[in-house]
């Protein structure tokens, strides 16, 4: 078994009386794209900043590629970071910033860097001062991917990107994961996580309330059935697994957790014209946690 790319053990951070993160135990495997979900203030950025030793844990520890996160001289050889709000040196041009960050990181793949600049349609000749939020994010994304690190910690990296660039980001991220790089993606853009991630962790008020593969999450959660019936509706409440029923024109919408066997048995006794079922979106799953 490979070393996990990221692992945390009881990782805890309090800011005075505020509990930002409590007892986080998490492992992310190499080559995985891990979605880290939660509303604002749930502790997503706190986790990433702890992993990077930008802030110090109140308790617990973390490792990056098996190296203690505290040992930044070694651990940071394996990791890069895109903050949610990218601040750059206003007087430097994009090229100058990428040169500086490349020199500090070491091991830049120059051809790949130029390809990334091209794919993100970034104009690196401009001074950072003239960059929009999206362009600043592109600089940080290029800088993060250009060294082909083992682990990328991305904190809402696409908040300022347009839909085309968002697509491009997803392609680049998938390529990276296919090469064995690990991506830890904090986000509240659920579509992005749904498209990209193998596994997700859901954070609420500093506590990890769920970690599961997307498929697994869907199985664990509500499936929605819509039945159009010719005639009178049977009483569906009280059946095992049924959580919500609501009338729709000509029929009923039913949410079921777990097996829909009892529901199907009951429906079998009435003249059903049409039966539709769909899996819940990540958004619907996500909302059940809050």
């Amino acid at each position, binding site marked *: 078994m490979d070393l996990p790319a990221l692992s945390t053990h009881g990782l805890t951070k309090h800011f005075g009386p505020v509990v930002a993160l409590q007892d986080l135990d998490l492992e992310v495997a190499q080559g995985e794209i891990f979605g880290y979900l939660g509303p604002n203030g749930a502790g997503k950025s706190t986790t990433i*900043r702890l992993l990077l030793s*930008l802030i*110090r844990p109140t308790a617990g520890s973390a490792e990056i590629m098996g190296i203690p996160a505290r040992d930044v001289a070694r651990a940071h050889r394996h990791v890069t970071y895109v903050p949610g709000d990218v601040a750059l040196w206003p007087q430097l*041009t994009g090229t100058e910033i990428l040169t500086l960050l490349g020199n500090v990181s070491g091991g830049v793949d120059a051809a790949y860097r130029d390809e990334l600049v091209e794919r993100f349609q970034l104009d690196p000749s401009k001074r950072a001062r003239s960059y929009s939020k999206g362009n600043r994010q592109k600089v940080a994304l290029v800088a993060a991917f250009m060294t082909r690190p083992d682990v990328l910690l991305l904190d809402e990296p696409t908040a300022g990107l347009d839909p085309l660039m968002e697509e491009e980001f997803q392609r680049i991220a998938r390529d990276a994961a296919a090469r064995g790089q690990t991506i830890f993606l904090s986000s509240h853009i659920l579509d992005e996580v749904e498209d990209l991630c193998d596994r997700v962790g859901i954070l609420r008020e500093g506590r990890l309330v769920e970690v599961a593969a997307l498929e697994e999450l869907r199985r664990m959660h509500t499936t929605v059935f819509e039945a159009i019936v010719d005639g009178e509706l049977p009483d569906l409440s009280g059946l095992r697994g049924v959580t919500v029923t609501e009338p729709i024109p000509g029929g009923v919408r039913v949410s079921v957790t777990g097996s829909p066997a009892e529901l199907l048995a009951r429906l079998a006794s009435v003249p059903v014209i049409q039966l539709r079922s769909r899996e819940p979106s990540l958004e619907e799953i996500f909302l059940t946690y809050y």
Partner: protein
Amino acid sequence: MGTQLAVVRLSSRLVRRGAVLVALGATAYVVVEAFSYEAAYPDAASRARLAEFGDEPAVRMLSGIPYAVDTVGGFVVWDGGYFLQVLAGIWALIATARLLRAEEDAERAELVLAGPVRATRAVALQLGVVLAGCLLIGAGVAGALAASGAQAAGSVAVGLAVAGFGSAFAGVAAVTSQLFEVRRRAVGAAAIALGLAFLLRMVSNSSDERAWVAWSTPFGWMDRMRAFGENRWWVLGLHVGLVAVLATTALVLRSRRDIGTAILASSDAPRPRLRLLGSPVAFAWRSSLGILAAWAAGLVLYTFVLGTLLVTMTDFLTEDPSYRAALELMGVDLTEVTQGLIGVMGLLYGLVFALYAAWRVGAARTEEATGRLEHLLTRPVPRWRWFGGHAVLTLVSAALLALVTGLALWAGSAVVGSDLTLADAVASTANTLPVVLLFAGVAFLVLGAAPRLTVGLTIGLAALTYVVQLVGPMLEWPSYVVGLSPFHHLAPVPAEPYALTAGLVMAGLGVAAGLLGVAAFERRDLAGA
């Protein structure tokens, strides 16, 4: 109307703390000056001698033309008026650029201008807030003067002149904030204007034939006001007129540009310069070079002029036993007059270099506060290496400043044929480096332990302990109080040999403070603004 009120309230909130601190500082300074006047010149005879001494060309160039120095108010204006004006001017130009340019740099101005308020009206309101701050500083000066027993009318006149001076440089910064697109440049250009105004004052005071030059600089206006005698109130009209012209210019310029742009915008896509981007330390050096050059230029100019005055000053001192006695009271051995003189002046360099060090550490803090430091620390750069790099650069920069300052002093004195040697000149400036190391250490300790106070606390401590050494011995403060000032432990090199033990102790304390700072920095969270 509500929006305009909101703009005023926001702006005052952003600058009021500085205004109050500067007003308190100015008030305290006036009180200390007044006390030291009563202590040093208790009787009419000593005050008459002071008037005579003050009329010497060399002294006039630095302190101004003495007027009514037989009154406490006149003395404060003559001895400290320029300092009060510099203080008000620097605060005003920094605060103005903060409101008119930094808010735009940070893209916060947009939030305000999205409300129902015209950009020019917002500028006028923000400038108004700074002018109110200048009046507060002036009120502190006037109140302190009056409370020290100076004539009331003269006190008010001087207070208004200090406020007017500050307002003038608020006006200058309002214009430079329209001209340049980053705060640093707006502040730099306004500070250069302040420096030039000071030079014009030195020129005008250097001889009676050039006295008319005083009308060309706000520094000269306070002297021409003849407070505590004639009290020529109409001179204040000059301040008002200058502020009106500058404010109007700023408003016109603002109306001709878009938000986020500048009248003298540099190219948005310059040729990339890839030198000094190889490591965090190289990059820190690259980022600080411009400001270091500006400090060096200012110091070189000032000390060069000072050097050219050395011969006049030493001639005067050799002829005036009472002033020699006064200097000897301050602990200066004047067997070699030139060396003694530059030994005493050397203390001031210590303060200036310490202020530079505080600013330099503040620049490192800015990297952290803006979040840009994260780009470096999330790469394989341990915190201590980044911190230590800045420490080394700060010390190297301060040493370079000491070197060029000494060179300029020597060069100026060589022009007029003084007997000052190059070695003595450089020794007098380099002598202060242990104090600079101490305050740099303090600054790094504050950066590690209480980062938001980095610049303010360090500058405050350096200025306070400097004033303690300046007035403490004269006022016969107990030695354990004066001894708290690091400046007290500097020997007046080259008149006396270098104080090795004190130097080592201060350097050691500085290094220890720096090490504590790095330890605290390693342990704490990175902190935003």
